[in-house]
């Protein structure tokens, strides 16, 4: 599995995002939750507020409100809608996020700690981000098929995490539950997949056609 190291630049303006959108098929934006201290639900519609009500932790509430609010602001510009309230999103029964009346736009969201990654795409895409820290996965590593890494050595914690992010991204791309693919080797033959290490701190996997 090839890995690319990336240094993320500082903030980008909406105008730059619009420019990038014109030049590229996929935009992946990284949002720091610490930059948003508001928990205003002003831009959420009734369905989103209903979803928010179900969330039982402040952390999940904050990341939900922030991701939806930021996405709506950006989509309003990219899709040239008049107002943020013209952007409406919903989740299908498998958990994939859609923009109502804009099926040509594909959305994928992933979170880790204080980071939200938002993929806005003209083609189907799955992403997953995880903070690069060692986790206790010794007993479940056999389910993760670390042979994906093409290494002769026993997979270490970071390798497992790389495999995990790729599996998650693949499942989101395929709109399947992670549990349905946990113990299955991924068929990567007809897809494009990339792994990035961002600022030496986060692992990001991207899967697309």
């Amino acid at each position, binding site marked *: 599995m090839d890995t690319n190291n990336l240094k993320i630049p500082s903030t980008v303006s909406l105008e730059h995002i619009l420019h990038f959108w014109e030049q590229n098929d996929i935009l992946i934006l990284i949002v720091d939750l610490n930059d948003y201290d508001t928990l205003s639900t002003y831009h959420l519609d009734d369905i989103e507020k209903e979803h928010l009500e179900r*969330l*039982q*932790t*402040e952390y*999940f509430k904050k990341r939900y409100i922030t991701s939806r609010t930021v996405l709506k602001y950006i989509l309003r510009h990219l899709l040239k809608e008049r107002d943020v309230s013209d952007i409406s999103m919903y989740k299908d029964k498998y958990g994939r996020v859609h923009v109502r009346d804009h099926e040509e736009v594909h959305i994928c969201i992933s*979170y880790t700690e204080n980071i939200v990654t938002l993929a806005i795409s003209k083609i189907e895409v799955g992403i997953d981000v995880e903070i690069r820290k060692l986790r206790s996965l010794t007993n479940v590593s056999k389910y993760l098929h670390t042979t994906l890494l093409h290494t002769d050595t026993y997979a270490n914690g970071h390798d497992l995490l790389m495999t995990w992010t790729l599996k998650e991204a693949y499942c989101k791309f395929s709109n399947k539950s992670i*549990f349905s693919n946990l113990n299955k080797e991924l068929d990567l033959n007809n897809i494009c997949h990339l792994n990035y290490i961002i600022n030496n701190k986060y692992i990001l996997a991207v899967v697309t056609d």
Partner: protein
Amino acid sequence: METIKKDILNYLNNKSFMDENTQLNDNDSLTQNGIMDSIGLIELMDYICEKYSIEIPEDMLTPENFDSLQGITDLIVKLAE
């Protein structure tokens, strides 16, 4: 069974995103209700394998067995018999 449930709840109190306002019922979805993310569930799987010396058969790797306090407790009881 109650001891196992208490142990899992204790794990969730320490390792999940639960805060002082969190209300968790036995059959609530841990992921849909914002208690854990998916990698958190995998770490929980690892914990129960270690703690209860069990191996989880592949056909039992289902959301029903892992996504609620009751599902996890039932799974441990079944496998530790």
